[in-house]
């Protein structure tokens, strides 16, 4: 497998000249991004700036038109989504992809049936225990036997996030608009779980969001995207004063 030249062990994810075109539209345009191990990186930018496409490229939903993606120095941009998941890249979707006709607990157990994860389902009882602990962690335990479709929008988002935490190893968690349409109480639970997973398990996060207060509280560094390119990077305060960023947001 081709490896990244600049890998110093601290960089968990690198995209190099990553480009995705849909017909005549270039959604992601020559994007090079470095994510350090253990950071919580925010990705912000106006609508249509390519944030979700970037998440889709990293998680394997889309295949890159050109460029490369490296996880821990190993090239991953040709791998199938489930293989990337088993390597430790988890994601959530803005419109949560849960299994609506399964119970909350069953939703949590689905990732265990994965041949590339050492067939963890053979340790059924332990996996169920772990799933229940995670449900307690995100305060959904009391709903464990309810069908997922009976949950509120915010609870479905929580369930989707919690389901990712059961994947092992968990290296990089990509979240696409985790706070969209979520009430403040659940927003708090999501932020706490991100911080705790980051602190306790060293999980790296990439969070796409329009919620600036949440980004400010969670993310040390923020990358700003506009028209498929990265136009700025730094703390939220730093990027907020860069003229190009202001222009992008007010459509200048």
């Amino acid at each position, binding site marked *: 497998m081709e490896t990244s030249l600049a890998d110093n062990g601290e960089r968990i994810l690198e995209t190099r000249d990553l480009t995705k075109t849909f017909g005549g539209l270039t959604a992601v345009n020559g994007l090079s991004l470095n994510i350090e191990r253990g950071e919580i990186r925010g990705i912000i930018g106006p609508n249509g700036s390519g944030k979700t496409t970037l998440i889709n490229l990293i998680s*394997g939903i889309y295949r890159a038109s050109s460029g490369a993606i490296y996880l821990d120095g190993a090239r991953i941009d040709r791998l199938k*989504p*489930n293989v990337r998941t*088993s390597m430790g890249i988890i994601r959530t979707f803005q419109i949560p*992809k*849960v*299994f609506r006709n399964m119970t909350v607990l069953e939703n949590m157990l*689905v990732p265990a049936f*994965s041949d590339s994860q050492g067939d963890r389902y053979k340790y059924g009882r332990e996996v169920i225990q772990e799933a229940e602990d995670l449900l307690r962690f995100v305060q959904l335990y009391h709903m464990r036997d309810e069908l997922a479709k009976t949950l509120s929008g915010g609870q479905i988002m929580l369930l989707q996030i919690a389901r990712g935490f059961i994947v092992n190893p968990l290296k990089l968690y990509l979240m696409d608009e985790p706070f969209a349409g979520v009430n403040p109480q659940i927003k708090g639970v999501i932020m706490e779980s991100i911080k705790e997973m980051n602190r306790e398990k060293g999980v790296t996060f990439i969070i796409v969001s329009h919620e600036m207060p949440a980004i400010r509280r969670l993310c040390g560094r923020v990358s700003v995207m506009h028209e498929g390119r990265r136009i700025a990077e730094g703390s939220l305060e730093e990027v907020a004063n860069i003229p190009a960023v202001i222009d992008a947001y007010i459509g200048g």
Partner: protein
Amino acid sequence: MDSLLLSQYLIAGLVIGIIYALMAIGITFIYSIMKMINWSMGEFYMMGSYLQYFLVVYILGPHLWFVGIPISMAVIFFVGLYIQRFLLKPMFVGEMERKDEYATVITIAMMVFFRNLAVVLAGPNQFAPPDYASPTYIGPLPVSGNRFVALVGTLLILGLFYLVVRNTWVGRALRGSAQNRVGIQTAGVNVLRVDQIAFGIGVSLAAAAGALLAPIFLVWPENGAVATMKGFEIIVIGGLGSIPGSLVAGLLLGLVESMGSVLISPSFKDVYGFGLVLFLLAIRPTGLFGERQRVA
């Protein structure tokens, strides 16, 4: 019209209906996971009936017919796995978009191929395996032994199918794939492997129907055509993608056919089913249990 005769037809209708439902559940199960119609389902029914005939007549002997059924199912399950692996899986490779017409072409080609293969291997003849059981009674009503066996066998297989899908890790992955194909992949499950298992299970249900019905509807190269037709009628009635729908619609179709036969004339047996299909298409095009397709 005496009530004994009527209830006899009623029972016969329910029995045949639940066995038709086995075919329909196989079709709808494959559809709900792979989002493709397997047009060669009847040929798996046909292969199941040939295998059963071969096992009972040449290897196991007439008393061990009940051993033949699981063997036929298992063989067809593996045939299904390999057919999916080499003929159908290519349509899912590459981007997430699929070539839907590919599945139609391949499965219709398989239908033609397997029918002709049966003619080449065993000739265009009809074979009749020995009876599974002698006539028996359900309560006061006499019922053909073969039909009784088929009913009990179908109920056992459906029960097993329910347990596997409901309670096992594979079953969870199967249901997850049916409910959200993208979600299951980002949960780390290899959806192509799930497809393969689903196709194997679906066609083995057809093989079970073929093996169970062999002494009633006999064994010949095109015996699957009727079963496929009934399977699709049930799916239109019950709603594509709904397993409870297939069960209810199967019973309904069986009842309508046998009631039509006894009350009007048995010559038009197939017409009554079509009448029911047309009626349902007029009043509820999604079928009894079908959901309106949401296009994301």
